[in-house]
């Protein structure tokens, strides 16, 4: 008698974007009373649930089962989310992205880099150089990577922690590594080929994240960053791991990223000759870049729940893609494969 009510339902899942989401949804729902088995599918963004829910209608079940996963940003529904592509968002997102790109080029043309002068670099000067750097072409690398990363995390429902960890990782590593440079008097310079590889990786990562942010081409999901499901299934807390270690490490890695300002500050730090002076110089520099970088990461989470979020993610995606292409082209230019295209 009991099994008469056992049925299999298929629901569409809104907000399912990654392999970790699949696991999370499966584990949350399988604990729900009445549920016998759960199978979530990323490519169709659906979940197949077999269970005994009495005489409830499909709609009621969808509502009921949405409750345990709501906090993570997912909802179940009967219909496919046809409008998720929302092409109309592009009408606003494209002009926004182009305007910001134009602003970026204008800032470079104005010669803000020439605002910095003088040969003695105090902590105040290092801070100012940081501010200028955060408005310069370094933005294409560090800012672009940060934007792609924070928007991606916000999209899967993780708002504040990854952003804070990124900035924490950046500030701490700049202090510690700056101190090391000051003490050792040696600077970590990547040679041409290492710089090329790093540029290429950053460019590709940004390109994939940018395309994912557009939420239009599902193809890119196949290449999505993250751990394959068969591995993540065996390490239970993979979603946590992803969301804290990754941004922290990305923050640390920014120390080595190809940004002329960062590198010349490192060269200067060489001459300080002490851990404290070196560390504080690089820390002041990182602090100077913080306001603009913080603005970038926190712009993503303030927007998540508003009705404009589609426009935001699409604008962010377009900007990230433009920066990614900019970085990839420059990587090829520097290694001598193609002639220079940009000259600011």
């Amino acid at each position, binding site marked *: 008698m009991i099994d008469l009510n056992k049925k299999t339902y298929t629901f569409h899942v809104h907000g399912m974007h990654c392999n970790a989401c699949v696991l999370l949804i499966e584990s949350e729902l399988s604990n729900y009373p009445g549920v016998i088995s759960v199978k979530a599918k990323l490519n169709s963004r659906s979940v197949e649930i077999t269970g005994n829910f009495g005489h409830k209608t499909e709609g009621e079940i969808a509502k009921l089962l949405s409750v345990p996963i709501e906090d993570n940003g997912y909802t179940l529904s009967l219909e496919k989310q046809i409008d998720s592509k929302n092409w109309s968002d592009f009408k606003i997102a494209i002009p926004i992205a182009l305007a910001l790109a134009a602003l970026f080029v204008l800032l470079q043309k104005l010669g803000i*880099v020439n605002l910095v002068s003088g040969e003695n670099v105090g902590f105040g000067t290092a801070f100012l150089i940081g501010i200028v750097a955060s408005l310069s072409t370094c933005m294409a690398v560090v800012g672009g990577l940060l934007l792609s990363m924070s928007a991606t995390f916000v999209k899967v429902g993780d708002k504040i922690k990854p952003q804070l960890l990124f900035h924490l990782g950046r500030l701490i590593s700049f202090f510690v590594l700056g101190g090391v440079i000051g003490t050792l008097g040696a600077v970590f310079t990547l040679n041409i080929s290492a710089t090329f590889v790093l540029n290429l990786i950053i460019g590709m990562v940004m390109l994939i994240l940018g395309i994912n942010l557009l939420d239009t081409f599902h193809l890119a999901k196949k290449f999505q960053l993250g751990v394959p499901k068969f591995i993540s299934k065996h390490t239970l807390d993979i979603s946590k791991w992803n969301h804290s270690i990754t941004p922290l490490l990305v923050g640390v890695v920014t120390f080595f990223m190809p940004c*002329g300002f960062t590198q*010349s500050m490192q060269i200067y730090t060489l001459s300080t000759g002490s851990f404290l002076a070196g560390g504080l110089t690089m820390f002041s520099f990182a602090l100077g870049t913080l306001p603009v970088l913080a603005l970038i990461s926190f712009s993503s989470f303030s927007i998540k729940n508003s009705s404009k979020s589609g426009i935001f993610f699409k604008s962010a995606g377009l900007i990230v893609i433009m920066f990614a292409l900019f970085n990839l082209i420059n990587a090829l230019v520097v290694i001598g494969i193609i002639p*220079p295209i940009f000259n*600011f």
Partner: protein
Amino acid sequence: MFAGENSGDNAGNNVSIVDGKQIIEIDAKGGYNPRKTAAKADIPTVLKIKTSGTFDCSSALVIPSLGYRKNLPPSGEILVDIPLQKAGSAIQGMCAMGMYNFTLDFN
């Protein structure tokens, strides 16, 4: 006195020949200046890059065809030896991120 009426940007103001050596001077700050230099081919050449309070990308100099990569001091000058160039060849220098560049045309 100098070969180089062919290109626009400068007519060799930054090029001098001392003791049979051609010296090309380039300022690096917020980009490279001049961006285009007409130089003489077939004579020993030294590139002199000057920085003054340079903290931007132009301090991270790359010359791909020479396999050259150096972080310039914030203020000062460095010398780069350039092997003999045939007429019609060009050497391009740029910053490590690729957004600033300069060209030396040899004729």
